[in-house]
Structures are given as C-alpha cells and as structure tokens.
C-alpha cells in the first residue's frame, strides 16, 4: 500500500513548526519519536474525563480508568503476540525493564562464576545493570565482538557459549548503527546451552514485527516513547513460568495479596511486578499509539522507511569526506556518519542552525565507539513521517557544514 505521508505528517502537530526560521526537520527518531494527535488527545481525555486510581476503587471513574489501563495490556499482548496478558508487565521503559530482570531473575538465578553474554553493540542500559549484577554476585560478563560493518560475529558468539552461560542479553536493533541482529539464531543457540535470553527491543519495536512466541524469547523489553507513545512508560514481556519463578522487584501497594507484619503474600502476575500507583495516563495513551501504528500497518511503515534509508544512504555516501558508520546488510532506517576532519558536535550545531535535528555523540554506546575507534557520530534516524525532501535538506545542510568548517 502506498502511504499518504502528507496526511500522516498532519497527525503530528509538532512537525508544523520552524526552528531558526527554517522548517523543522526531525531526524532524531531513534532518541524518541513524536506523538500523533490521538495520543495527545488520549492523555487530555484521561485527565479531563476519568482520572482515578486503578484496581482499587469501586466507583465509576476508577472502573473506567482500570478498564482503559487493562485495554492497553491486551493491545500490547497482541502487538508482541504474547501468549497471555499475565506476561505483559508495565514498566517505566526499556532501562527499567532490563533492571527488573537483572535485579530479580539475575539475583535469584545467576551465581558466582556463571557467565552472562552481551554484545559490543549494546546501549549502556543493557550493559550497566549486568555489570552491577556481576559486581554483586561475582558472575562474569562476556562480550560478543562485531565486524567492521557493525554486525555481530556469530562464530565468536558460539565460542562464548558454554554450560556456564546462564544469560544472554542482546539488542535487537542497534540504536547507534541501525544493525538488525539475527536474534532468532542468538536465542536458539543460547537455549541449546540452557541459557535464558533477554532482547532489548527499544529500537526494533518501532520498525520490525515482533512475535515473541515465534522467537521463543524469554524476555523482551521496549519503551513506549520510541513507538509514538508517551515517555516514562515501557513494557517487559516475560515467559509466564519465568515471571512466576522470579521474586518481586519493588515492594509496596498493588503488588500484594495479603500483608501482615509477619508475612506478605504477593499478587498474581502481572501485578506482582507493578508496585505502587503506575503511570496510568501514559499507559492508557500508549494503546492509542499502538492502534495508530496498526492502522498504518507495520509492513507499510517498514517498506517506506527502507526507501528513505536507501535514498539517504545513496545521497550521503556521494558527499566527499563523509563516511557512513555501520554498513550491516540488515539495517533499519538509522544512518550514522562522520565527516573527515570535523567533530560530530560541530556537525550537530550547524545542522541545528538550519532547523535539522540529528543526534551527535556516542549515543550511550561508548564501548561500541571505542571498538570503532571514533569519539562519536552524527546520526539521522527516520520515521514514517519523514520525507525525501527532508533528506535533501539534510544533504544541503551537511554541505553547509563542510563549507563553514573546512
């Protein structure tokens, strides 16, 4: 299906503005996506119409809020093709989801001498929680190397796997380079040695179809704000039998069955992991973001984004002195680049003057930048509301950077 991009753009009020007198070109979608009116309206409607605390009150507003909150859980379940709603835990985001798994599954089941495998491509939020666990428990962190294209080297991964491997935590799509990892193979090979697998889906969930049952993945983490949804809300998918075996993460209200001063019994899934009043409004609004994606169709979105990526790659590579960083065969619409003799920060400042928003720096992947031997990159990441004309504006913007800075 051919998408009407102009119509889609009109769904995102923020895009209709100028920065420094120039039309905003928003190419920082890997950091966070913009929000369609339906999501903004949903937040407003919630606070104006049925704000209440959930799962507790018996009054009309509480019931309406609870129903909306739980409706999101159902939508997320089908978005990920999970087996049951008990497997969908609401968190504050990918970072929180990973910390939850490291702090509960990790603390209970991973011991001194056990090994955890991550990759060179990881975001800090899929490095630090495991380092913290290893410091506490004396387990060992192993790193899958990458090739110069920015792809995981599967043979090296296989060499790291052993009966000592208890956990593998790998990013589905690299936020810095756009690489799509072969996660089905990674998961199967981990399972073959009895290890459990978490996939960091912060980037992948907006570009790729996710089927947690087909993947047979144990845990999958994502952030709503990268999926046209609100900030401060995310999801942890976990297989039911694992979530049941895990101790709770935080203690408090909502996550209990019964409390006495002698002993507390915990609530059933998923509430066991949702202590305290959750981020109700943002959870409620997230359903509208997912419905929005579903209406356009993920396949349509991916096809269009791939066209943008191909166009941008060709145009950018034709600029003298520009090197694209990350040339994986399988990529999403993220393009990282460096300019010879020009610091990425200078690129970002001059593009910003022209109304073009890109991300510069290490993208929270410092070990990856060390592996690539660069201080950072400039990164343009595209979403379905971006256009070919905007890529032309980026190219013109980069030429201006070169003119001013060389």
């Amino acid at each position: 299906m051919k998408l009407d991009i102009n119509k889609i753009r009109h769904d995102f009020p923020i895009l209709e503005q100028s920065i420094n007198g120039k039309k905003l070109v928003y190419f920082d979608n890997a950091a966070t996506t913009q929000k369609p009116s339906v999501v903004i309206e949903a937040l407003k409607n919630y606070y104006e119409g049925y704000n209440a605390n959930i799962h507790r009150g018996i009054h009309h507003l509480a019931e309406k809020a609870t129903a909306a909150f739980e409706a999101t859980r159902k939508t997320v379940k089908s978005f990920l093709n999970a087996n049951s709603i008990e497997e969908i835990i609401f968190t504050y985001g990918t970072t929180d989801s990973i910390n939850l798994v490291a702090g509960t599954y990790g603390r209970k089941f991973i011991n001194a001498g056990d090994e955890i495998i991550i990759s060179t491509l990881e975001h800090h939020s899929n490095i630090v929680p495991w380092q913290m666990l290893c410091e506490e428990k004396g387990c060992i962190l192993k790193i899958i190397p990458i090739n110069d294209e920015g792809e995981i080297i599967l043979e090296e991964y296989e060499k790291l796997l052993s009966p000592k491997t208890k956990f593998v935590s790998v990013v589905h799509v690299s936020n810095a380079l756009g690489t799509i990892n072969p996660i089905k193979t990674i998961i199967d090979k981990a399972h073959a040695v009895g290890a459990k697998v978490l996939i960091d889906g912060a980037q992948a969930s907006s570009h790729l179809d996710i089927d947690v049952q087909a993947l047979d993945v144990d845990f999958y983490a994502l952030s709503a704000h990268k999926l046209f949804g609100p900030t401060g809300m995310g999801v942890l998918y976990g297989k039911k039998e694992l979530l049941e075996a895990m101790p709770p993460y935080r203690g408090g209200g909502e996550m209990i069955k019964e409390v006495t001063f002698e002993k507390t019994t915990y609530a059933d899934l998923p509430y066991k992991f949702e202590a305290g009043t959750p981020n109700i409004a943002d959870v409620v609004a997230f359903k509208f973001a997912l419905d929005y994606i579903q209406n356009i169709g993920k396949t349509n979105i991916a096809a269009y984004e791939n066209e943008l990526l191909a166009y941008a790659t060709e145009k950018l590579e034709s600029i003298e002195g520009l090197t694209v960083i990350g040339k994986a065969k399988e990529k999403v619409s993220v393009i990282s680049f460096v300019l010879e003799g020009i610091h990425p920060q200078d690129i970002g400042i001059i593009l910003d003057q022209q109304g073009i928003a890109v991300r510069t720096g290490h993208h929270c992947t410092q070990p990856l930048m060390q592996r690539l031997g660069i201080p950072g990159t400039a990164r343009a990441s595209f979403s379905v509301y971006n256009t070919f004309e905007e890529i032309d504006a980026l190219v013109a913007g980069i030429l201006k950077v070169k003119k001013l800075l060389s």
Partner: protein
Amino acid sequence: MTINELQDEIIEEFELFEDDWEGKYEYIIDLGKKLAPLAEEFKTDENIIKGCQSVVWLNARFENGLVIFEGDSQAIIVKGLVNMLLKVLSNHSPTEILNADLYFIEKIGLTSHLAQTRSNGLASMVKQMKTYALAYQSLEK
C-alpha cells in the same frame, strides 16, 4: 580592560550578526581556529571539563596576582566559545573572576542557540574557572 569592558566588546562585535547565523558561526569558528592549541603536557585527564560532548581542556596558573587560563577542545565551535571565555576571564585577579557576572553569553544569543547539553558544558567550564580563582584567592591570604 575590565571583565565587563571585555564582555561589552564581544557583544558589540556580535551586533553585526543580528540575523545572520552563518556570519555568527563563521566568526566563532574563526575564533576556534585562532586559539593556540594547548600544549600536550596540559591535555591531562585532570584538565578535562566534565559535561561536554567533546573533550574540553582547561589549564590555569597564577602569575603576579593574575590568573592565566588556557584551553582547548576537539570541536572547533566549542573551541571558539572557549576562546571567548578565555578572552573575558583570563588575566584577571581571583577576586575579579569570582565576582564576574557573565552576561555576554546570553546577550550574543548563544544560550538559545546552543542546546542545554552544550551550554551546560560552557557552564561547567565557567564553574571550573571560578573554582581555580577561589583556590588562588585563598593562596593570597
């Protein structure tokens, strides 16, 4: 010249670029290119200003009652901004530096042009300069 006279001088120069961002940044880039590189021996970890996206170094020494600052950066625009801060704050007494109110950054429209993260970098640089001034002031007493 006093710190405020130096600031006013910069503000005057930037008035030329009122609506001309390219001219303004060309000027800053030029200041970056003109700043003599910091000697390698001073590019130490202790001299790195935290909170900047590019590495920024600041070195200080105390001579005849005046604080002399030198600085450098990997990024040329930041280096231009560093040059401006050095022009304004270097070669003054610790007391003058501690009492300085740096209004020129806002006046020349750079706080709005530089995102929070970057101006935070500038802010950390100013803070570090004042910390040196404070240390040298206590030496004098």
